[in-house]
């Protein structure tokens, strides 16, 4: 993921932008709000009793379910959160033993849904809860595309005011000093509510004390930049339907590199395009000038050629005229000479 981030920064295109991209996405590391709360789920303690589902249904005043919460047969089929079911428990068979996993919003430290929302309807609260404000929502469902845990759900059959629905971490109850509904009703202590830092310590302690029971991994400590809900388990998380290939990059960083190029495009593109236009215009102008020049030159050349010709013709005419004059003069002189000779010559004696 580090590499992907690096490539993402390069990919943005302009190498000149790399520096600012790095500061936009890289230098600060958000560790979550100090003192914020979370819940630790311990899959080794969960017995799949669905008490948490029932409690969630009750405290969130969700509609009655077709299957009662004490019917455990539903555990045999895979379920996901729904617009009137904010949490579900699924049963997985690992090495022929049932393992249960509770699913609800993980309340990411830097939520993908909040990063995706183009009206800012999602807020990560200082309590740790990520809540959705339906009064802002346009209903584009990009949050559902973005969420790597497939949590937000939608009221597809409401024609006028459909809502995005998901676990609220019982934020109103937390503010009243109460526990989230599911945590309060868990009979086996599979859910522990507390400050996130304390939960991490509890989880580490359990793993340290019982290395034979737990896998050495706290899911949610770093996944997608960290989540407020965290999980410890005795079996690989992949085996209980949890993606282990999500990486540790907080969702906003996936887009911050490319987004930081927006101002660059807005700033640079008009200049390039105006430049292209100016170059085109200039090229046209130069071409036009060259054409003018060439025409003028051709005209001048033609003119000088014509003048030369005219001059030559004039000269020739002059010469011809002179020659004619000379010729005439010569002829006249010759005639005069002849006449003089004729007069000087005595008459032919024979004529006399």
């Amino acid at each position: 993921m580090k590499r992907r981030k690096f490539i993402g920064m390069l990919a943005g295109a302009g190498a000149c932008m790399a520096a600012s991209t790095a500061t936009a996405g890289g230098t600060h590391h958000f560790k979550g709000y100090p003192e914020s709360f979370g819940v630790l789920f311990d899959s080794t303690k969960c017995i799949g009793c669905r008490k948490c589902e029932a409690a969630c249904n009750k405290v969130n005043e969700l509609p009655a379910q077709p299957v009662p919460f004490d019917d455990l047969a539903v555990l045999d089929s895979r379920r996901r959160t729904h617009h009137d079911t904010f949490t579900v428990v699924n049963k997985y068979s690992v090495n022929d033993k049932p393992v249960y996993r509770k699913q609800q919003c993980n309340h990411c430290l830097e939520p993908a849904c909040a990063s995706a929302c183009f009206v800012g309807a999602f807020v990560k609260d200082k309590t740790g809860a990520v809540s959705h404000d339906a009064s802002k929502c346009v209903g584009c469902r990009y949050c559902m595309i973005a969420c790597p845990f497939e949590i937000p759900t939608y009221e597809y059959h409401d024609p006028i005011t459909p809502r995005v629905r998901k676990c609220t971490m019982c934020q109103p109850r937390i503010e009243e000093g109460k526990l989230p509904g599911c945590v309060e009703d868990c009979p086996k202590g599979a859910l522990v509510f507390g400050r996130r830092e304390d939960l991490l310590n509890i989880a580490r302690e359990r793993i340290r004390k019982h290395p034979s029971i737990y896998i050495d991994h706290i899911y949610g400590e770093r996944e997608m930049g960290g989540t407020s809900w965290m999980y410890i388990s005795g079996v690989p998380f992949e085996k209980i339907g949890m993606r282990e290939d999500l990486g540790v990059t907080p969702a906003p960083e996936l887009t911050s590199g490319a987004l930081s190029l927006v101002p660059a495009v807005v700033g640079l593109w008009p200049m390039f395009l105006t430049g292209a236009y100016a170059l085109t215009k200039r090229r046209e102008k130069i071409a036009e000038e060259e054409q003018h020049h060439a025409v003028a030159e051709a005209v001048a050349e033609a003119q000088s050629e014509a003048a030369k010709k005219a001059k030559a013709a004039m000269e020739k005419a002059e010469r011809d005229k002179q020659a004619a004059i000379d010729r005439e003069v010569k002829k006249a002189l010759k005639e005069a000479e002849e006449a003089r000779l004729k007069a000087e010559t005595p008459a032919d004696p024979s004529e006399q």
Partner: protein
Amino acid sequence: MSHHTTPSKTFWTPANILTAVILVIGLVLTVKRFTMGIGSVTNLTDDNPWGIWIGFDLLCGVALAAGGYTTSAAVYLFGMKKYHSAVRPAITTAFLGYAFVVFALLYDLGRYYRLPYPLTIYPGPTSFLFEVGLCVALYLTVLAIEFSPALWETLRWKKLRFWAHSLTLVLTIFGVVLSTLHQSSLGGLYLLAPSKLHPLWYSPYLALFFFVSSIPAGLSMVIFEGGLSHTFLHHKMDETHIKEAPGVTLGFAKAAAVVLFTYFNLKWIGVALDNNWHYLSTGWGAWFLVEMLGFVLVPCLMYAVAAREKSQKLAFWASIVTVLGIVLNRLNISLVAFNWQLPAELRYVPSWEEIMITVFIVTLEITVLRICLNKLPILHEHPEFKGAH
């Protein structure tokens, strides 16, 4: 022209009857969608929140409307004046394309009446969708002004026409900036879902891929629609349009060949950077190769040959393959390779009603386009405004 048609020719041609039938079904489904909710007509689920209304109507619609910015940039910014007659048809198609993208979006948005919220009441600038919304809204405005002279000419509102026309250069630059941003940000939308989109299609370059591929998409649509206009609307075209058309087709073919080849190379750089070569030997890899070789490289070569041999026919066929390739790419990213890890029974397949609404919207768009091309000075110059561009 109308005076060429004999009065006996009926309005109820087969094409018009089909159009009418589709429009009626579409209206019925529209009523259903807006009274009983999105879920009543679509197969969308919590796992698959975006279907063909986003994958086709939005992503493909925007890509295929790219002819507007590519053509006007070529003519007004890069001085390729010999393509001038292609600008108006391209702007018209782009304007209608975007208008219908926004129209289609109203079906998909749960609270469609809040569409202006991101731009006015609650901006969410960390989202690529915010950028898409902002740019599409602004670009639609730009296109409306760029398109308007055809209307003012018909109405003979000379002052308004002059005013709109005098903005051409600024609007063209603005249009290219906005197109760069929202064409790429459509790809950027998927940067947020690396765990859901198949690695062969997911890339940190996604935004760049979308932008670069929108260029041949736009050029191909100009060639494709030009070819169709010549067949069906020849009588509407003036001498300049008919004379310039082969030049437009072959010039655009050459440009499309170059950009497609660039795109082809870029895509492989994307695969190489994330070292995703091993996926090529899987079924997904075969599908990726179909897209890359059959719908990028093949049309690229077709265009190159068409430009060299000056074959308008081959360029026309290449434009069809390119357009199909763009549609395939956008659908792959938004639907086919998206959620690839979900089990088959949870994958999305559009319902017939969903498809029908998309067909309805496309039909409506083509109908409006036909009316525009027939009634407005788009394929010919208005006699009172000859050479006034």
